[in-house]
């Protein structure tokens, strides 16, 4: 047999010593291999687990902190009866949807329950199972506000259990706005600034009656650039970064002025006067100094920092911010008011965040039991008490006695709530709007170009 080794002269003694070492090493390896085999056979022979583990993806934040309490309660109670134990898998919020989508693209069965949202469920539809039979009569049960359930349905088929509702408030400093309504000197200055900067003399109004002109006038009054005696550096802190979540906030301006994403025939509706006027509300406030020029890099965190450091008197912001703004450790605690979004028509963009069943899950029955539990009042009560914000009338109303934001969320959702679309192109449309609008707000293009470009791009997108 031809040797695989090249023949060379060698030292016999050294070779024998090396051979002995090799033999000893072989013996040790053989023993280790035997141990490993025995251990794995033992594991295989052990009785199968009686409990099915359900893995659920969630994103980090107050929602996951609240969900941890629900999971603990379920696993210790109903989960034992169901033979199900739930494990939460956390993904960070940055790039969350992309990471989850790659799991869906891989048709992964590692996870049983996905996280979803009204603005993403259309895009995820192909990777989800509809859950109408898993949670029948979810709307009739009265646990959830029907709008919220509908916002996770596509074509009448339900794909998610809504667990959180997000919508927008206008937060304001109650002490400053109250003073504006009662202090004669402030009111005189307000009139002077509105005349000089906006071309019309305006008087302060109660905040729940504000138009967008009142919003502009107040932002200028409370900015040091226009009013050196202003108690705050800026009137507001607009979230004008090129970011889809910021477009959701701006969308309130559009809808309050009578605009919309689609017309009554379902065609894109962006090249309109309402769109141009709405874009110019932000542009004017930034240009005139009512909001910092760096607003074009601001999102949720920066706006909160501006408000809590008393450098902004009011702001448009997500409802979830209330806890942080009015919390015990906040410098402005006790001075935070909630008002509807200004405008001739009172609106509040809303979407639901929830959980959905992975089409490729190997534990659909178990996951279904978990989803059924989540759609019950006890689960929702635990979730809300732990900091979640479920779209449940009874919870929001009962907890509204201690949490002003809960009471207002119920009112806003039922009276003013709207969702532009739950189709598969929502994310792409938001991205188009974010790019065009942030360009307007940075002074790179005008509102008319943004309107035309948005209309053209969305039309091309839908035609694909």
């Amino acid at each position, binding site marked *: 047999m031809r040797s*695989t*080794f*090249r*023949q*060379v002269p*060698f*030292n016999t003694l*050294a*070779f024998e010593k*090396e051979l002995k070492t090799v033999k000893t090493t072989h013996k040790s390896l053989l023993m280790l291999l035997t141990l490993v085999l025995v251990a794995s056979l033992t594991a295989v022979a052990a009785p199968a687990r009686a409990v099915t583990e359900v893995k659920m993806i969630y994103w980090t934040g107050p929602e996951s902190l609240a969900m941890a309490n629900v999971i603990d309660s379920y696993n210790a109670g109903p989960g034992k009866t169901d033979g199900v134990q739930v494990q939460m898998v956390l993904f960070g919020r*940055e790039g969350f*949807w*992309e990471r989850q*989508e*790659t799991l*869906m*693209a891989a048709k992964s069965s590692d996870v049983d329950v996905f996280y979803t949202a009204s603005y993403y469920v259309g*895009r*995820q539809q*192909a*990777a989800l199972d509809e859950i109408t039979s898993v949670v029948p009569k979810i709307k009739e049960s009265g646990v959830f506000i029907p709008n919220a359930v509908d916002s996770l349905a596509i074509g009448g088929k339900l794909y998610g259990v809504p667990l959180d509702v997000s919508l927008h408030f206008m937060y304001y400093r109650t002490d400053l706005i109250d003073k504006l309504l009662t202090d004669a000197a402030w009111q005189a200055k307000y009139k002077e600034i509105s005349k000089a900067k906006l071309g019309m003399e305006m008087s302060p109004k109660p905040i729940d009656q504000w138009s967008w002109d009142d919003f502009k006038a107040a932002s200028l009054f409370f900015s040091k650039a226009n009013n050196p005696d202003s108690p705050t*550096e800026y009137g507001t*802190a607009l979230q*004008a*970064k*090129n*970011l*889809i979540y910021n477009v959701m906030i701006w969308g309130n301006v559009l809808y309050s002025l009578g605009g919309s994403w689609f017309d009554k025939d379902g065609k894109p509706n962006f090249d309109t006067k309402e769109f141009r006027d709405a874009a110019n509300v932000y542009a004017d406030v930034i240009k005139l100094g009512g909001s*910092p*020029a*760096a607003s*074009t*890099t601001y999102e949720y965190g*920066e706006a909160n*920092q*501006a408000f809590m*450091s008393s*450098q902004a008197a009011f702001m448009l912001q997500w409802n979830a911010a209330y806890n942080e703004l009015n919390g015990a450790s906040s410098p402005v605690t006790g001075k935070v008011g909630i008002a509807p979004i200004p405008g001739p028509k009172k609106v509040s963009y809303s979407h639901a965040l929830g959980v959905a069943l992975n089409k490729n899950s190997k534990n659909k029955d178990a996951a279904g039991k978990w989803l059924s539990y989540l759609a019950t009042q006890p689960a929702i009560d635990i979730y809300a008490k732990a900091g979640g914000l479920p779209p449940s009338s009874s919870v929001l109303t009962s907890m509204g006695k201690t949490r002003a934001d809960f009471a207002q969320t119920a009112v806003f959702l039922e009276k003013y709530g709207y969702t532009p679309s739950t189709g*598969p*192109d929502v*994310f*792409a449309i*938001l*991205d188009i709007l*974010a*790019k*065009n609008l*942030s*360009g307007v*707000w*940075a*002074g*790179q*293009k005008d509102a008319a170009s943004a309107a035309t470009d948005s209309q053209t791009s969305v039309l091309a*997108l839908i035609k*694909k």
Partner: protein
Amino acid sequence: MIAYSRGPARYFQILPLVLLILLLTIFPTFFAYLISTYQVRLSALDEGTFVGLSNFAKTLSDREFYEALWFSLRFAVVTTGLEMLVGFGIALWFNRKALPGKRIMISLMLLPIMVSPALLGIMFRLMLNSFVGPVAYYLKQAGFPGDKLLTPNYLVFTLILIDIAQWTPFVFLILYSALQTVPKELYEAASVDGATSLQKLRSLTIPLIMPFILITLVIRVIDSFKIFDMIHVLTGGGPGTLTTTISIYIYKMAFNAGDIGRASAASLILLLVLSIPLGLILTRIMRQEAR
């Protein structure tokens, strides 16, 4: 004594590495070629429509693609140029004979490159925040427009500064190590011949460490051209498309617009665009080494 193997065993020994390269590099590349000819969403890869070269045509006729490419090119040239100059300058300074606390200073210098670019972006977003940022505050106190560094007029300048702050130490590290390889006797001989510092730098130092300079240049150009994390965290590519790099363009096409086919086409076009000049540079480096 055991001799090395020449038989088939050697192929088995390199098999794990070959499989890894196939799995992580070759297969994804060919998959990208395939996907680029489909109109397809990431969440429904098996429901695509074959469109041939349509994705390439759409990308090549997209004004924003060229804007992103142009921004990436300018960003890469400016940041790399400044990092090479500053990094080389610091390396020369550290190469002096007596410098007290040299080791500690080198260790501190290297800290920025140990931070992930995304984390650095978040840190600067907080530090430059006009409401609560300490850097913005103290710059403003010192009379500089510290609260304007994130405004559209200053934004690109700020991004360049952050990139320089993070990657100049990398250039310093490579070039400082290269300077250590230059024999001191050459400088002594040059001094005896009456050469000035500038003449030594031009005629001795730079020619002798040129391969290191070129390699560092290539690495930094590639890295800064495909920058993503720091800019995405700070600006999202905005406002508008002001700071949209080619990587951000591709990312948004894939994940925001959901068009993975077009994103793949854009990636392949980018690969072609970069491979030609980089191939020429690498060829030059290898020829120089052969000499």
